[in-house]
């Protein structure tokens, strides 16, 4: 689901050294879900991933920008430490913030294309704003 006239979950914008993304969502949970797919599509290809392995983590209540930043940092953590490519996300609002249940698979060069590694989620231009009837996030990945 998305909520923008371009009918996209995310799109890249030009950035000299790294990668900039606009991510769209009908509401915050959907925005997070699409941010996850955008991340994994930047590293590999979401459509090639068989969601066999589950992980769960809490996004503590904070500003939308800090929560999206934290979420994407968790994906970097799982990628670096367990080589996990996460492709499916269920986000549930809880008292402390949002509970993320994510599924994916361990990177296998025979099954998953490798496009690029992501070093960090920068704070540059980091923003979550209302956009048409939904939300739009701007994030820049350091490659």
């Amino acid at each position, binding site marked *: 689901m998305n909520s923008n006239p371009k009918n996209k979950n995310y799109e*890249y914008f*030009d*950035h*000299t*050294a*790294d*990668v900039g993304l606009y991510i769209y969502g009908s509401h915050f949970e959907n925005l997070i879900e699409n941010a996850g797919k955008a991340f994994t599509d930047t*590293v590999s290809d979401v459509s090639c991933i068989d969601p066999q392995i589950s992980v769960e983590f809490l996004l503590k209540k904070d500003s939308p920008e800090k929560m999206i930043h934290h979420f994407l*940092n968790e994906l*970097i*953590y799982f*990628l*670096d*430490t367990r*080589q996990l490519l996460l492709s499916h996300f269920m986000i549930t609002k809880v008292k402390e913030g949002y509970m993320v249940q994510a599924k994916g698979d*361990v*990177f296998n*060069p025979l099954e998953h*294309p*490798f*496009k*690029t*590694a992501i*070093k*960090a*989620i*920068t*704070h*540059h231009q980091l923003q979550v704003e209302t956009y048409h009837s939904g939300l739009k996030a701007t994030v820049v990945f*350091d*490659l």
Partner: protein
Amino acid sequence: MKIEKINDWMWRIPKEGDMRVDGIVFASERMMKDLREDMCLQQICNVAMLPGILSHSLGMPDIHWGYGFPIGGVAAFDEREGVVSPGGVGYDINCGVRLLKTKLTLEEIRPRLKDLVSTFFSKIPTGIGAHHPFKLKKEDQLQILAKGAAWAIEKSFGFERDLDHIEEKGCIPGADPHLISERALERGRDQLGTLGSGNHFVELGYVDEIYDLETAHILGLEKNTVTIIIHTGSRGLGHQTCEDFLGHMENANRKYKIKLPDPQLACAPLRSEEGKSYLAAMAAAANFAFANRQMITHLIRESLSDFFQRSFNDLGIEGVYDVCHNIAKFEEHVMNGKNRRVCVHRKGATRAFGPHHPQLPKTYREIGQPVLIPGDMGRYSFVLAGNSKAEQLTFGSSCHGAGRLMSRNQAKRTLKGRNLEAELAHEGIIVRATSRSTITEEAPLAYKDVQEVVEVVAQAGISRKIARLRPLGVIKG
């Protein structure tokens, strides 16, 4: 913004508003035309507003826009009144370059180039999930963070003499491994001895031109001899350390009431606990990067030895030098005739001490510090030497590389339909990469011409040209 020409190679941005010092940019007239449209000049002005900045906010000729500090930015701060900023170092702490020389010649490896590059590609871990055969335990990690390249030597991944030809002898003093977070340790645990991806590479090349015969001889560089460049940094451990401390610095800014023109310049006073902690953690992460390049050096030695069935000594695989491109450290510099201890930030810039500097190894005291400037994978790289003029003008600093000209997406659009690997092979350059996208994104046309960058530092007198290297084979993640 007012820009004044000092000479053909140096430009001043006079201080105005909240700037505490002038900005100085090293660039040619032609480069300056493009830079006037780039936000990096505003970033030089922003850095000039930070407390305790000394002399000038500097931009090297490969300057381009970064996060907070520009890439190609140099700034030194007073040890009592100044600040330290993780943004002035970058996410990839001690991303840097090591140059190896060999006794192999171009004629020897040309007929077997493709197989040799394939050997390197199979032996040097690149991309996701690739790791070095050596399994680290937690106590090893803490030792690496404390000792840097020396740890690798102790474990027989190299020789004692390798340390002489590494900046800071491969270990930044004052590192505190216990300041590295558990998350950073976890991210780095399987990454020691790995290349990474993006603009990191191992490049097999040869000495194609010598500009200073005497200095090249001291460095052991002879025309048509084979060289290897390693470009990588502190991997996930360093990236996470930067991220961890960016958070602490945000709090420090509020605590010490530091007014910032850009939140990405988040910093803390050098005297503060936060400032000292960052420097100690940064040093630990930097030591991981030194150890990383040492481990990769050993993999290269083993690969070449197995391939040619000759010993390391016979092949003469030795370090020329190893430099940091992203670092902040205390150094002594002469200001107004007096020795002064300052904290120099170099983000996408290289230390370039001149002859007789006490920090240089004895073998290089007469010639100055080697300054290694990698170009793109299709053209050339340069070996320079530092001059004492750099110590007067730039806190002993010089450029670090070519700098990007176009975005990754733009590179992909421009090269659509072209087979870059085949084009480079046609020119005698073999490229192997874990990711096909990376080859396109890192295409030569995506980068500025490093020759132009080097010309500026040479003409400005902060470094001098010693040799030019040409690529033969490139490994990327």
